[in-house]
């Protein structure tokens, strides 16, 4: 489930509010609010679309988890999915790295 919108990094662009398919976030005057955490389907897409690497989705789908933001930032976990998918400038070469055709037929 979505656990964190990091106040230091968030620029209130509200992309997460728009792109969340299950409408978990609400707009505010400042950073968006995780208004309906229980509706999070743990699809990681808000994290992927966040241009500031301000969000963290815990992999636990059925229950909220305590998370240590400082440690996550220290370990560069925030934004790790976006980098792996090739959606950052330095990882663009990964956009066509799909090797599924080598895995089918197993």
């Amino acid at each position, binding site marked *: 489930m979505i656990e964190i919108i990091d106040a230091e990094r968030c620029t209130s662009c509200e992309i997460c*509010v*728009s*792109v*969340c*398919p*299950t*409408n978990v976030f609400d707009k505010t005057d400042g950073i968006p609010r995780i208004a309906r955490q229980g*509706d999070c*389907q*743990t*699809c*990681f*897409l808000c994290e*992927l*679309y966040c241009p500031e690497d301000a969000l963290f*989705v*815990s*992999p*636990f*789908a*059925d229950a909220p988890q305590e998370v240590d933001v400082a440690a996550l930032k220290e370990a560069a*976990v925030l934004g*790790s*999915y976006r980098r*792996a*998918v090739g*959606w950052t400038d330095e990882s663009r070469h*990964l*956009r*066509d*790295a*799909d*090797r*599924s*055709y*080598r*895995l*089918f037929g*197993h």
Partner: protein
Amino acid sequence: MTNPSGRAEKLSGSAGSLVFGADVLVLGGGPAGTWAAISAAEHGARVVLADKGFCGTSGATAAAGTGVWYVDPDPERREAAMAGREKLGGHLQDRRWMTRVLDRTYAQSNRLADWGYPYPADEDGKSQRNSLQGPEYMRLMRKRTKQSGVTILDHAPALELLVDGSGVVAGAAGLRRQKGDRWAVNAKAVVIATGGCAFLSKTLGSNVLTGDGYLLAAEAGAEFTSMEFSNAYAISPAFGSVTKTLFYSWASFTDEQGSVIPGASSKGGRSVIARALRKGSVYAQLEEADAETQRHMRVSQPNFFLPFDRTGIDPFTQRFPITLRLEGTVRGTGGLRIIDDSCATTVPGLYAAGDAATRELICGGFTGGGSHNAAWAMSSGYWAGQGAAEFAYQLGSTNGRQAFRRGTVGLHSRNGRQLQPDVLTRNVQDEVFPYELNYFREAGRLGESLRRLDGLWSNASKAGPSDEQHLLRAREAAAMLATARWMYRSALARQESRGMHRRDDYPEQDDRYLHLVTTGGLDEVWTSARPLVSAQYSEAAE
């Protein structure tokens, strides 16, 4: 012949609502919906697309990645691609549809390349087009949909269809949940591309898929088919949402003590896993993947590794607990019945595409998960969009046409009671999640479950929403309940095991059931047998 100037017209609506006039309204913004919208626009229609979530991220494809049934137009390869599935599907497929889907998928996939989709090249430099990365694919599809002149309404769930005095579909109405108001689209044709129903099981990306389109189509009189092929379960870490069953073909499966579970396998042995899960925890470890395979897995499906990397588990060297999450009709094969090559339903002006439509035509009774569903979304989306645009053109002017709302359950209270969506959702999940009810089916258990579901329906059908905030949830819960009843009534009607449908009391395939099961109805759910007659479909209108 794109028509970017032919945008849907914004009409003046009553206070608190947004009203559009359009030729074609597409409900759902996943692969099928976006292909339908683009196709309708390319055939000259003014199009509105309304998505419950956000077109580009919502649906089963966007969050994941998918294989695509993309086969080079080589007669031998095509023959093998079709023949390979016929036994699995219990010989319920239609060769003519398989052929046209293979042709259309080939064409649409190649258009994606023209539009800039970054297909990988293999060692020989050949572009490989039988797989798509969900986020990348659907980001591109949103862009192309907008460029086609389609008006997109995000976070705009449809609540009910509109029909004219003769029962012809005339649009739909719904909510704009982030604006707190209502929308209505007066349209000459509607495409249902709202996906299947996974019952809020948190199988990856599927929690927007609650059968909403089924319910509103049924209220207008639409029929369903192959709803008994609805017992797909996917493997995921016990704690997580990432269902990527393909990768478990490199797994060993063990019990609490670490003993290998005999016969457990991702393919052909998933029922063994389901039986073991009824007794206790089951663990997997992807120990059969060599270093090269591990590298391919990492770059092909980065999200598969998020649950592991973020919990410090190495899935290749460590055991982790798994579960099976219900995928229902998302990776089953049933859905709205299609009556001709344009993907028309039994309701005039109403078309169906993608997982909302039946995939029996290419999958028979076996799961179409992944490749076949992706190919079907592209193909049926294209045809439904074209068919809807042509229907709208034939209809001509609809000035002065009256539209009537067809929504029932959860919208208006007829008995003063309020529908409690969360309670109803849990009640429905209790009937469809358990393996002993849905995975392993048997007349007595199915019958008992149906009695409980019918009881829930008779309580819910006359109840209204508790308040505006719960309107969508009430409709979703009602749609899941209706879907469960069509599934189980159809499952009872098929007294054999065929394709993915397995009956403990009838473990063998029985050729007396070499037909399709049609179902429908709301207060009274009915089924009937329909013969396999490929000739019943009219010739291609293309």
